[in-house]
């Protein structure tokens, strides 16, 4: 579903250049994939690169599916606008039926009256529920999920899982998380980022094992 050819990405920081990816060539199969790495290893940058928000410094990113935006806690919402207005905006840019999408998301996110309040008044759990509900209501082929899976109470988690299972015939997930439990639950294979390189593991358990070695 996605192919990276000799991709490099660096950031300029006050202390000098930070290399996130250093000439990475890899190909991800059509599977649910876990992205692992230590803090600051470049997991979120990787999601931004494959979603198309950012371009690499050099190299090519090829994708042949529709990708969601990286679904995070609240990064993509305008804090001054209500949940409703944010949902409308996303419906418009993705060419969805606005009212249909609003109904679906309102129903799924269970924010009650907060749906009509500015997003800045939301708790992080509420922001994540809105983000997750909104993305699941649009039919992407690949969902890019950044740490939001393990939110909400048990009931909401069960609902998220059910929604996600319902998408599986047509969609896959690429997931960044520090919760090994949710990675095991959702993903078959894994990708470990370390020192600007990426290693692909066909079994997510091997990826997790490598991740634990890195943290040791």
């Amino acid at each position: 579903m996605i192919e990276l050819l000799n991709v490099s990405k660096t950031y300029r920081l006050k202390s000098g250049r930070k290399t996130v990816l250093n000439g990475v060539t890899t190909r991800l199969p059509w599977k649910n994939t876990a992205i692992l790495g230590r803090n600051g290893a470049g997991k979120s940058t990787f999601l931004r690169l494959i979603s198309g928000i950012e371009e690499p410094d050099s190299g090519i990113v090829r994708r042949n599916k529709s990708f969601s935006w990286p679904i995070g806690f609240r990064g993509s919402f305008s804090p001054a606008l209500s949940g409703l207005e944010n949902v409308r905006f996303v419906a418009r840019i993705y060419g969805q039926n606005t009212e249909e999408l609003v109904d679906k998301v309102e129903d799924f996110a269970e924010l009650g009256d907060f749906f009509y309040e500015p997003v800045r008044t939301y708790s992080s759990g509420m922001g994540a529920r809105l983000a997750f509900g909104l993305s699941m209501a649009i039919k992407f082929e690949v969902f890019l999920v950044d740490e939001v899976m393990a939110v909400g109470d048990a009931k909401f988690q069960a609902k998220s899982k059910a929604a996600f299972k319902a998408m599986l015939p047509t969609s896959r997930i690429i997931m960044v998380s520090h919760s090994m439990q949710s990675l095991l639950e959702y993903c078959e294979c894994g990708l470990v980022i370390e020192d600007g390189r990426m290693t692909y593991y066909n079994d997510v358990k091997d990826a997790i094992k490598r991740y634990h070695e890195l943290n040791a």
Partner: protein
Amino acid sequence: MKQLRTQFRVVFALVLREARVRHGRTRIGYLWAIIEPVLLTTILTVLFTQFRTDSPMEGGFALFFATGVLAFQAYRNPSQYVSGAFDQNQQLFNYPLVKPMDAAYARMLLDVATNLFVMFLVLSFQVIVFDAPLPADVPRMSLALFLLFAMSFGAGTSLAVLRRFWPSMINVYLVIMGPAFFVSCVFFSLDSVPTFYREILAINPLVHGVEGFRAGYYSIYPDSDLNMLYLFGWVVVLNCFGLVGEWLTRFKNI
């Protein structure tokens, strides 16, 4: 083709969103965007009319000043608004479909519409209440206005690019635009200035836009020193700087 349709959709969504957030969540919302410049123009006109009672043209000083202020604002307002398009919309660029330039286009569209509406209100008021003459040459006014808007977009995107590296750039710009009001022929005509100073003033491209707009409004107006081609040169240079600059620095701002 599909890409173009998507971009139209995105820009349209951004226009609606910008209109919603521009004046916060006040009850009258976007009406403020109209009321504010109309009030400002009216107050300035009243103030300046007190100092100057001799009218350089038919229709009195009020009309002369109003046409000047409107043309000046047609440049200044969008350029300031567009300059914040990248900076103030960071979270929106989390959606891969939304590109920074789309935000600049959206802000420009919204502010052009706002300015045209304000212009219509202020000039109608002049015609109906003060019995001012109707515009003589609308195509000529439109050309000057178009060039002012176009230069405004170029300056706005150029500033937006500079703001990626020096956020305080906007303050420098505001400092420049303050005195610019006094040297852009807003409340005097280029013709009334002594020859020596006239040549210096004519370096300011806004002079040609403001006077060009006015030269279209009045049936007779001294326009021998106006050069629309010179203004057009500024339009091209600023737009090139903005567009190329944006393209070169697109992923360098983090």
